[in-house]
């Protein structure tokens, strides 16, 4: 139902990210798993048990969050190498 539309949208957005990003791989895995489960199960209760992550409404909210995150990732591009190295004593503890 709504979950199917949301997951197709997420997969569409993910296609825009360059192929070798780790984010794209992992999110595609997760989304495809959930998508397959949603398509095979028509009974709401059994779907909840199989997904094992709370009520269906929560799963819908989570999918909407994932969609907005994917859109923002296209802007921010976090898969490039480091922006800047820290100064060498920045994270030394104890000083």
């Amino acid at each position, binding site marked *: 139902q709504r979950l199917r539309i949301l997951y197709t949208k997420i997969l569409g957005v993910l296609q825009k990210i360059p192929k070798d990003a780790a984010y794209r791989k992992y999110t595609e895995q997760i989304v495809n798993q959930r998508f397959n489960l949603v398509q095979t199960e028509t009974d709401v209760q059994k779907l909840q048990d199989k997904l094992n992550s709370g009520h269906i409404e929560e799963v819908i909210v989570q999918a909407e969050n*994932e969609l907005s995150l994917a859109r923002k990732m296209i802007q921010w591009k976090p*898969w490039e190498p480091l922006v800047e190295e820290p100064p060498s004593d*920045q994270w030394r503890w104890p000083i």
Partner: protein
Amino acid sequence: TVRPKNEVEQKQLCAFGEYVAEILPKYIQQVQVTCFNELELLIHPDGIIPVLTFLRDHTNAQFKSLADLTAVDVPSRQFRFEIVYNLLSLRFNSRIRVKTYTDELTPVDSAVSVHKAANWYEREVWDMYGVFFANHPDLRRILTDYGFEGHPFRKDFPLSGYVEV
């Protein structure tokens, strides 16, 4: 008595830390796991908002709750203040710490757009340390007196203050 070491949890936390570092290599500089099973992510200050939104929205890492926002003053370093965010995940029951650095006069992006709870915490960090947050609605003094000059929690502020009461 010493706390018994939970090896399984440590390995899980290590694996999760590597997963996150693989997904976001642009901003994460280092990942640590402390001996009492706490994960820390050390981040370049430009990447606060992306990393916090990622941790909030991603399915494998649902850290919806901002538990704490503090700053640490280490005067001998070039970037003086370290800003620490503590996040809690309700679905997976785990905590994570995110650390960034800044020096005195560089503004930091505000976390209010990601977590609404950051509002008063950032006012407190501004008031006590002097770290300016850009895009913060209503950044003003909290906890100090109305005409107070100076930022109390810095290491060079004396214990009894500059003004006699």
